[in-house]
């Protein structure tokens, strides 16, 4: 197996695994956050605006982790420097 095939296999597998494993944690965290926010809304409806705003800010921070994984996955597929280097080498030959 030459280096070009190896790089392709590694990039594709890693890209899939990155986004697959990287979405589990944030999804569980966001579900827990929304559940807690709903129960505290039921307990204190007057603080609805504060709770909602804090919930959204917290969800955005949790979501960023999934976004980081997505960006790494996209880089591996579309802007992969190792693949570009190997392709340039193969084209140069």
């Amino acid at each position, binding site marked *: 197996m030459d280096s070009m095939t190896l790089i392709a296999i590694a990039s594709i597998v890693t890209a899939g695994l990155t986004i697959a494993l990287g979405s589990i944690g944030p999804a569980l965290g966001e579900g827990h956050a929304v559940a807690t926010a709903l129960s505290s809304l039921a307990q204190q409806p007057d603080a609805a605006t504060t709770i909602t*705003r804090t919930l959204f800010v917290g969800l*955005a921070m949790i*979501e*960023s982790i999934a*976004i980081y994984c*997505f960006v790494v996955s*996209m880089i591996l597929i579309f802007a992969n420097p190792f693949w570009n280097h190997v392709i340039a080498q193969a084209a140069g030959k």
Partner: protein
Amino acid sequence: MRLSPDEMIFWQHGLIKLNGTILFTWGLMFVLAVGSKLITRNLSTELQRSRWQNLLEIIVTGIEKQIEDVGLRQPKTYIGFLGTLFLFVALASLCTVIPGYEPPTGSLSTTAALALCVFVAVPFFGIEQQGLGGYLKSYIEPTIIMLPFNIISELSRTLALAVRLFGNMMSGTMILAILLTITPFIFPIFMSALGLLTGMVQAYIFSILAAVYIAAATRSRKSKPEPAQAIKA
């Protein structure tokens, strides 16, 4: 597959490129500036006012109230910066309904620039409120061992701001592009609506996080119970 509007090149002359990001950013700036100028030409203080002035008043008072809720005491000092952040990112996301338009916040350059503005604005407002010594002293709180961690947290949250906004905008446009090649009839419309929703949420998040960082930098250390009172009230 196009990753960002940086790759849409409209005109090129040697090293100088007019790409989609620059064009759409200037378009948005033009719409915001000229629109506001036209609406605020004849402001009226009576009950009878034009609907555009009403719209602007709703937006401005809404942003002012949000800034005050976060804990910044004189929202008028900060509303120029924070309001512009919100309006720019929100309009950039709203205009995706126009065909042929790509949001400039889908390019890492734009979001990095916005995050750098926040990075510079936080010490600016902090020094303005607390003086240079007072602001620098906040880095060694609570103990001097925390100094490298405070500095790293400053840098990492700037990076997080940039990548969060970029990732959300880029993923929205990319999902749409992929779906258009697979099921081009109805499903992309739902994804487009979802993209609009996440765009508005991300605009709100960006400006609220900037406000929270500025509030943390300008909050004087002696009057700490204030946020708790704001929540009780």
